[in-house]
């Protein structure tokens, strides 16, 4: 379908630049361009545009989008700005915008943006961000995240993102057998200037609905991911996914703390090895308890490799910890190791395994909670 584009841009020079870009973009006819929003609102209708590109930095953005939405009820509205502002994004979406693009843009960037938003993939307004935290490493959390992401996407058909912020030894790329050219390092570098669509291109798709922002390629790159940029990336990614899962380094460190603070829910993950992991988890819980008055809503505990696997063991662990158990995963060492060695998901290799059941159960809990939140 050809796009009949109306352009509103308050800066005269930018108006000229963008007009030329739009004229050269595939599938785009520039039907009208205005430097004044009142002209655009009043006269634009004559040309029957179906795609509006609106400068949101000259006026009160929410008001402006509301007015354009009223005047052009069925057109796709894409906001234009010089930098992406995650905090106002959801207001713009609620007012009727479907997307955002950073200007100036190229014809290719415009096409990618339109393609993303025109096929109905608008910006997400309610994303559930989940951080997976473990006191010590080898807790089974990367396995959990990868399989849980697949399960959430299959059950809901919604877009699911994974961010590998285990900044020195992130394994997610190996789990999915990816060799990405862009990673969290590049995303953080460009964080301030990235609209969600451009950020999307840093995520590597692994299925129709699941994509991964991979970790650093070597440990020294950790210094290139500043915490504030990491936070910007997470906030932008909220607009792209319904569920966003974050893998972080073990223990309390700037990355894991910031990811836990920014998340809607933090999962504390430990592997049940009959060592001192319960003690470590209790120690971690008490620190979160000191900081978060709403700790019971924000913090969930998951134990992996639990045997005997069942409700009895789960409540035993619950009693020992004095904290509710959100879920347990059974011991499936050979299954998960083989899966990761071959870049496949345990869920796919053995969809009828106890592990798949356990993951599915956890996914259902997350979905139920999210649906309740969305309908409030």
């Amino acid at each position: 379908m050809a796009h009949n584009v109306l352009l509103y841009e308050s800066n005269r020079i930018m108006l000229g630049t963008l007009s030329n870009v739009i004229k050269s973009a595939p599938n785009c006819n520039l039907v009208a361009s205005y430097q004044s929003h009142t002209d655009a609102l009043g006269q634009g209708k004559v040309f029957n545009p179906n795609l509006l590109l609106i400068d949101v930095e000259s006026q009160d953005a929410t008001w402006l989008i509301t007015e354009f939405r009223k005047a052009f009820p069925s057109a796709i509205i894409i906001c234009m700005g010089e930098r992406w502002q995650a905090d106002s994004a959801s207001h713009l979406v609620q007012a009727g915008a479907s997307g955002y693009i950073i200007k100036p843009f190229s014809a290719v960037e415009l096409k990618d943006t339109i393609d993303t938003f025109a096929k109905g993939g608008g910006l997400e307004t309610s994303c559930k961000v989940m951080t997976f935290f473990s006191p010590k490493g080898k807790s089974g959390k990367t396995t959990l995240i990868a399989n849980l992401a697949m399960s959430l996407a299959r059950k809901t058909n919604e877009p699911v993102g994974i961010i590998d912020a285990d900044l020195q030894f992130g394994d997610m790329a190996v789990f999915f057998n990816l060799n990405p050219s862009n990673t969290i390092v590049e995303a953080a570098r460009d964080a301030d200037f990235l609209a969600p669509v451009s950020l999307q291109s840093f995520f590597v798709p692994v299925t129709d609905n699941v994509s991964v922002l991979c970790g650093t390629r070597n440990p020294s790159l950790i210094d290139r991911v500043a915490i504030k940029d990491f936070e910007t990336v997470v906030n932008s990614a909220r607009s792209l996914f319904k569920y966003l899962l974050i893998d972080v380094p073990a223990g309390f460190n700037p990355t894991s703390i910031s990811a836990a603070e920014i998340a809607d829910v933090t999962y504390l993950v430990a592997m049940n090895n009959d060592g001192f992991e319960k003690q470590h988890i209790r120690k971690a819980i008490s620190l979160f308890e000191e900081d978060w008055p709403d700790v019971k809503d924000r913090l969930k505990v998951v134990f992996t490799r639990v045997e005997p696997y069942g409700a009895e063991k789960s409540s035993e662990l619950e009693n020992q910890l004095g904290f509710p158990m959100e879920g347990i995963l059974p011991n499936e060492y050979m299954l998960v190791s083989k899966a990761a060695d071959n870049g496949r998901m345990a869920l796919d290799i053995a969809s009828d395994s106890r592990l798949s059941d356990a993951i599915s159960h956890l996914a259902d809990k997350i979905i139920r909670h999210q649906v309740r939140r969305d309908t409030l």
Partner: protein
Amino acid sequence: MAEENLINGVVITFFSTASAVGKTLISVNMASELAREGYSVCLLDMDLQFGDVSNYLKLNPIYTMADIQRMMQAENSDFKIYEFLTEYEHRGVAFHVLPAPLQLSEAYNIEPEIVESMVRDLQRYYDYIIVDTTSMFSTLNMRLLDLSTIVTFLGIVDFIPTIKNMKIGNDTLRSLGYDSNKIRLVLNRSDAKSQISRADVENLLEERFYHILPNDFRSASTSIKTGVPLVLSPDDSELARALRSLVSLYTNKPVEYESIAEPGDISEEKSGGWLSKLFN
């Protein structure tokens, strides 16, 4: 013990780039074996947040690194570090432990410079300082690596992500410019269940393992449960023997036990197989 040496003691650090590879278990045993052989030994728990040394030895320390840091910062000239260490003793074999802080907030506030002074101070009093660490290239760990006489870089072969991290870790360590004998690549849990062969790993690392420790889950977990290190336990497991022979390699004492490390089977061919796809 704790008499001032005229020479500085040897610092042996256990490091890895994956967790749960046996750093704590092996450092505890190294300290015990050296003590059993009559050396004065201090074991440092540098896993500040979730250290397991006191857990594995069932110690209830009164002073931890947090207290010692406070005392050192106070710059009291009468301060003697060894007076604030915790002793581990089993059937006449004893060594000292400098435990990790008890509180997470204390752990977060330990300063690498002070740790460096602690190690230097301890070197004056002990033949051997054994250092247990965490699996990352943190400022603290880098400093400890610099300070060490020997770094034991431990790995296990379970699945590919771990091997990838071992390769990255080994390459990074080699890039730090240490003398070639300083870093010693040791494989733990060698015959654990895995699809990956030791030879594949050695090909990838372009290096042979310096020593190999067998997998013995039962002995390892019994030792942790009872708080008695394997090398001090009366049942002489294969793992205990392999640990002792690692120690003898470090002390250059005649090998009492035959090393169980068979020469790695490195083929002439470079690994062009499936592991190399990770690192092209």
